[in-house]
């Protein structure tokens, strides 16, 4: 058994890991510099090089150690924190406050976020109009750019988008790692269908009200980005909902359950991404022959994607976000990244290498901008 595990391990030598990192090294450099490196700005250069090196060190470590989740989570959490900082900084620079007014909505000055996408589909189909008050092509975070990026990431990674591309998932991912053991263990499996109910409600209410109702009333991340100016009972109720949901689903419940509760119980985009797991070529596979049914994968899964029955049947459910936590936790390497159509326990290393390359490239593209902005701001404080 030990020899078999040794053969299956995805850990590589230093030289081989370096070789695997080289294409990422070149691609991230081109993407981050736009192919035209400009080192005239000192703080900008420091920020760019720090981000560039940081990203590639993490990618190198994924290959060198054979572990995925730990290094992905570092980048994912940093991404969420820096993005919130960047958004707050931008809104304060433009509006001198974290709040937005009705005037900002009328002038379409709202940065677009991928969580709005489920609300755009029905109104766009029936009225040929975009209901979100943002810029379609230009400006900061345009609607078209976000939709294209999300589509590309979802088709390629499926629900892997939720662990490798989402701007906010790092918040509850981070809080779910606070405790070593969960306080709340027994949670009904049926709650995982909640995002579909939320999706149903927000898609219908948005289509009927021709307004992004999720952003207006529910989104917990309004608490760490921007929210409507409190001018009356309704806007006060909204602010109360944003803060309560952020506190409950992003902070408290992830700490108590060690699960990503906002992503699992609320996010309507997560519901759509769950369906996109049907089209992606990448998946997580369980090799029944190597599995010793210790169920460590079920315990560590942060997304309610694995049950004991799933393990017994050798299937990972469509709720999987391919974060790699179960893969890293498996003592017999029975659970691994795979490609659809290829049987479990075949092409394990190739599948992982290919998946890591694609998914890391997505998170590097999404995260680098905001990380550079934050490092630059910090460097500017000292220079």
């Amino acid at each position: 058994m030990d020899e078999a595990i040794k053969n299956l391990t995805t850990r590589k030598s230093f030289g081989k890991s370096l070789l695997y990192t080289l294409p990422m090294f070149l691609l991230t450099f081109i993407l981050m510099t736009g192919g035209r490196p400009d080192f005239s700005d000192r703080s900008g250069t420091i920020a760019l090089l720090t981000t560039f090196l940081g990203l590639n060190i993490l990618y190198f470590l994924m290959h060198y150690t054979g572990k995925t989740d730990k290094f992905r989570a570092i980048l994912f959490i940093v991404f969420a924190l820096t993005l919130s900082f960047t958004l707050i900084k931008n809104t304060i620079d433009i509006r001198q406050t974290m709040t937005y007014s009705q005037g900002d909505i009328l002038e379409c000055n709202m940065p677009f976020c991928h969580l709005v996408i489920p609300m755009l589909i029905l109104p766009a189909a029936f009225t040929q109009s975009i209901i979100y008050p943002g810029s379609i092509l230009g400006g900061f975070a345009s609607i078209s750019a976000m939709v294209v990026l999300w589509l590309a990431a979802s088709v390629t990674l499926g629900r892997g988008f939720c662990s490798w591309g989402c701007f906010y998932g790092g918040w509850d991912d981070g809080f779910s790692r606070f405790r070593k053991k969960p306080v709340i263990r027994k949670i009904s499996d049926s709650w995982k269908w909640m995002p579909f109910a939320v999706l149903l409600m927000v898609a219908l209410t948005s289509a009927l009200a021709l307004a992004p109702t999720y952003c207006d009333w529910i989104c917990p991340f309004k608490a760490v980005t921007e929210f409507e100016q409190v001018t009356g009972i309704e806007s006060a109720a909204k602010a109360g909902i944003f803060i309560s949901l952020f506190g409950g689903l992003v902070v408290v419940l992830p700490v108590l359950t060690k699960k990503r509760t906002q992503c699992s119980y609320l996010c309507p985009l997560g519901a759509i991404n769950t369906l996109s797991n049907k089209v992606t070529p990448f998946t997580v596979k369980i090799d029944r022959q190597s599995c010793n049914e210790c169920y460590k994968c079920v315990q560590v899964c942060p997304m309610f994607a694995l049950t004991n029955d799933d393990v017994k049947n050798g299937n990972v459910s469509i709720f999987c976000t391919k974060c790699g936590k179960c893969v890293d936790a498996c003592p017999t390497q029975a659970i691994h990244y795979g490609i659809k159509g290829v049987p479990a326990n075949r092409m394990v290393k190739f599948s992982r290498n290919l998946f890591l390359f694609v998914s890391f490239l997505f998170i590097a593209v999404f995260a680098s901008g905001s990380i550079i902005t934050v490092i630059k701001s910090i460097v500017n404080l000292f220079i």
Partner: protein
Amino acid sequence: MLDSFILGLSSGSTCLITCGMVIFPYLMAGTAGTRKIITDLSFFLLTRFLVYFILATLAFYFGKVIFTSPVFRNYISGILYMLFSGMLIWYAISRSRKPDCPAKIVETVNNRKLVPVLLGVVNSLGFCPALMLILTKSATEGTIIQSYLAFLGFFAGTALYFIPVPIAGKFRKKKVFETIGVMATGLAGIIFMIKGLTSLIGGIIYG
């Protein structure tokens, strides 16, 4: 009208799962063609429409008698919204909930021609929390037209689910649809709870 429609849509999915299986055999039993099914379904929906029309009228005039001042209206409607939406949320989360349809009563009726009409009456008068919320809304509207529109929205939202009744038996993942429907009902309850809370606070502050 919008929130009534949403309430109808969200609670209608649960209604289809729990009542669809009772209504479907009665609409289909002994019939051969789609024409008969469509006729029976039309009678069923028409009866529901008429019952809702009567309920909207009664609720509006009852509301006029009870809600004599705008402040009183805010207080009472706020409390009623919170009470019924609380019941709706409880219905969604309660594990002891019995998924029985009140329309089962038609099992005792022998006259086949009367069945769609009776089903329509029983189904409309199954005083569930969702219907209580619409009654409250209807009673607090300013004009009788608004009261009718509130019920029309609710009727339209729930009626949508009865249209595919003849194919309801073919749903493969009935349990999943039921779970999502029940959760959506709970979410609609939360929306009305917030509506009730803002109405009550509005009454206190501006009263």
